[in-house]
């Protein structure tokens, strides 16, 4: 499967280079798709947790208890285990458990619950007086939830999602080991399995640069939207 003769030691740009680029593309695809799907579902779930909690806009003890339990059940499952648990669902949805797209299912599932807590935490920090002021204008709760809550917490939310980005990169590497592609698989197959640490280290550098870039963009965006 893997051409053994070629470039077993050191980083050969002509051989490893294109594979590295391809793996980076797969990682970005998995991470991006997870952030979009898990990010959106996590936002909805986080809004649900925040609005149904005691004193919330839609305070409802029963609904909150169910949502809270759901998050508490799924969030602590180690991702590696979750990958196995989710596999049958992935096969049902996509017909396969292999490849980057298949990994996105498990990653989005895990990200949803992580994101929901981050969203909840940042929304809780909104001054209740601001929400009261909106209610006093006659705004419906739906309008407040859809047009006010996210903008008011946007700066911290962006930082929260940046944090999630790093966690999802971590997940994608783990997913690589099981059945996926991406930088994790690249480092594993061409680096670790052949004891070629030049490949491992270059992968590490690429991931560090990726994370640094994401954090820099996150910091800048959040500063721009925060009017403090």
């Amino acid at each position: 499967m893997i051409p053994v003769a070629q470039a077993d030691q050191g980083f050969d740009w002509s051989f490893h280079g294109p594979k590295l680029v391809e793996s980076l593309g797969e990682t970005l695809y998995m991470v991006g798709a997870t952030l979009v799907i898990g990010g959106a579902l996590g936002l909805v779930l986080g809004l649900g947790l925040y609005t149904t909690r005691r004193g919330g806009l839609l305070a409802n003890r029963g609904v909150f208890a169910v949502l809270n339990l759901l998050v508490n059940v799924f969030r602590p499952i180690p991702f590696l285990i979750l990958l196995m648990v989710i596999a049958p669902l992935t096969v049902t949805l996509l017909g396969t458990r292999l490849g980057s797209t298949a990994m996105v299912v498990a990653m989005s599932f895990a990200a949803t619950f992580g994101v929901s807590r981050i969203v909840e935490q940042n929304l809780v920090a909104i001054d209740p007086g601001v929400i009261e002021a909106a209610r006093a204008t006659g705004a419906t709760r739906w309008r407040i939830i859809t047009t006010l809550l996210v903008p008011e917490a946007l700066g911290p939310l962006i930082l929260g999602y940046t944090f999630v980005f790093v966690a999802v990169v971590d997940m994608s590497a783990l997913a690589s080991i099981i059945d996926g592609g991406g930088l994790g698989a690249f480092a594993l197959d061409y680096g670790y399995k052949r004891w070629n640490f030049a490949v491992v280290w270059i992968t590490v550098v690429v991931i560090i640069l990726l994370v640094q870039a994401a954090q820099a963009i996150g910091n800048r965006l959040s500063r721009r939207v925060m009017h403090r």
Partner: protein
Amino acid sequence: MSPIIELDEVTKVFDAPSGPVRAVDGISLTVEHGEVFGVIGYSGAGKSTLVRLINGLERATSGRLVVDGDDVTTLSERELELKRRHIGMIFQQFNLFASRTVAGNVAFPLKVAGWPRAERDRRVAELLDFVGLLSRAHDHPSQLSGGQKQRVGIARALAARPSILLADECTSALDPQTTQDVLRLLRKVNTELGVTIVVITHELDVVRSIADRVAVLEHGRLAELGTVFDVFTKPRAEVSRRFVSTVLHDRPRAADLDRLRRHHEGRIVTADVLDGSTLGAVLGSASELGVAFEIVYGGIGTLQDRSFGSLTLALQGDDPSVDHLITRLRQVTTVEEVR
């Protein structure tokens, strides 16, 4: 004048871990169309809860509360939302939307009320001009001073042309100068726009500056209700007296009295000074009676264009003559002998 807000035995009970708390306890009062109505009380007196009952942010536990023709205690949440468009509210901490510009804050209630874009823009400009912040329309609230933030709060509260404005401790976070500016603006809102204002405060100075009538609250109950002048000059409830003493230092306190007694011989009396009380004429006759007097404490101010205050006098002479003078004083004003 006709009532715009009527409270009839309104009670609000909160469930606290330590047991039920009667935050508002059987309050009945009416606010007339076009007046500035003050509600004063110490923190925990229930005044913030009271004002939130009026726009339904809190639901009354019992009683009837009619606002502009509707009993808000019986309205559904949807009906309340529509009702609130006619009731503006401003807050101690301004509670502006940090994510929106000044113009965006003022536009919010108009979006809620479904105003079309063009009319909304026109109304926002008109309001920002009214509060003197047209040039700051595109700034964010964080770029404004406290007084400017409250002006934005007022513009936002007035956006959808409400008939009532609820002001909850709206000057408590401001310095004295800015407080006066904001109160002047509220005066203008009342006189030029005809908006009925309910002012919640723990500062009697605020009530004195703009209110026509005042309700004094203590432990959720109505301790006293009357015109600002009456409550100021003839406070009946102990809590009202304490409030008056915070702004008007015309009456000697216990420590002052001790000092006065040490330094002055004879008897000490405090006489109220109001418009038309002819204290001077009576005192002019003191020497005829063989009584010497000294003014040892006091203060006279104006309230709603009328004078009020008191003077404390040390009277020296033989007892029957001093009694005679006190009798004459009592014919023109209220006199309290403090020794």
